[in-house]
């Protein structure tokens, strides 16, 4: 059983579609790993917390809301530090985020801060024991590559990181 953290991307105070896709993928990943929890983190200007309900409806068990007037635009360094801090405290199996402009910037920063293996532009994600299996299109979609992300060691958190490609993973609303 392992918990999964999602960075829920917003623009203005609205969730972006990639955020819901990432929550949906995280729900499936947590369920497949024996019923872990999905935690989402949303960061933006005051009022952004209203997105929590929608994240819950798509499968998040817990939503962390970070509201600050300084976050009205994508403050990449602050947000990377905030998400990394939550990820370290939470001991998550994986951190998921969209492969959008924000996600492309944030993903590698998180990977480096957390010393977590990263896969990008992921269209399918699953668990295999302690490892995470991620499929992504390489060579301009001419070759499909399946990656294994592994290598937890004793004193490091077993943290993986995958960025989910928008448009390929479907969003899902959880029944009430």
């Amino acid at each position: 059983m392992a918990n999964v953290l999602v960075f829920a991307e917003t623009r203005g105070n609205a969730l972006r579609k990639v955020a819901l896709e990432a929550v949906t993928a995280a729900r499936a990943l947590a369920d497949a790993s024996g019923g872990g929890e999905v935690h989402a983190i949303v960061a933006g200007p005051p009022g952004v917390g209203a997105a929590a309900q929608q994240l819950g409806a798509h499968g998040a068990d817990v939503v962390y809301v970070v509201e600050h007037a300084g976050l009205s635009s994508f403050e990449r360094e602050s947000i990377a530090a905030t998400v990394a801090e939550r990820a370290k405290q939470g001991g998550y199996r994986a951190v998921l985020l969209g492969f959008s402009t924000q996600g492309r910037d944030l993903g590698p920063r998180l990977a480096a801060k957390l010393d977590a293996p990263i896969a990008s532009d992921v269209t399918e994600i699953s668990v295999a024991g302690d490892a995470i299996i991620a499929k992504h299109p390489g060579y301009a979609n001419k070759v499909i590559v399946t990656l294994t992300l592994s290598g937890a060691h004793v004193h490091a958190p077993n943290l993986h990181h995958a960025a989910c490609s928008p448009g390929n993973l479907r969003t899902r609303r959880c029944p009430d």
Partner: protein
Amino acid sequence: MGAPTVKIAVCIKRTPDSESRFRIASSGVAIDEAGLKFDIDDFAGYAVEAALQINERGGGGETVIVAVGPDSVQESLRKAMSMGADRAVQLKADSVPADGLAVAKALAAELKDGGYDLILFGKHAFDTSAGVVGTATAELLGLPCVTAVSQLDVANGRGSARRELEGAAELVEFPLPAVVTIDEGVARPRYPSLKGIMAAKKKPLESKPAQLGAVRVTVQKAELPPERPAGRIIGEGAAAVPELVRLLQNEAKVL
């Protein structure tokens, strides 16, 4: 003293021609490289050109090309030097791992005490399209990172850049040293001149082991995508509509 000169590292990757038809190697975890034409990755090529132009405008400085990879990468390093780069460093590894963070660690170890003002990357490489290594290297080095830059300039110890975003552009300024990843639009990479090719043979190319650390992302399987079925002509004009609707409903199941 003239304008302060800039020391630039450009980290490149060697990738196959994107127009190639790919086959999977018998290992099942890589492409078959036989018959493929390899070169400096397109975006990394723009980064090399951007570095050369900055130093030409500044009238000095140094451009150093760095790559992780087996000895075949030396050909690409030599090519960048024939374009005008001053020297090159190969961080030797049997292959470039799929673990972008491991590659970033090897590059950061090489670059951290190099005294570079600017470290350039392509925004991503054709083979993985991941775009991890540049940003992760910046993070490991604790440097500011500006990604997907289509115009880049340096003046008075500061950089300025234009970034292409989803449907918008952003103009940014940043202190040096910094890491910048390069999009197309900066400048077309020049062709090496004969003189450049001759000069490159005498330029220093240092080779040392890549400090990759643990490689934790590995390719389990590489496969070709399913073939797209050939197109079909089902009729012409309005007469074709009922059949088209039937196929869209029953075969494609999109209606």
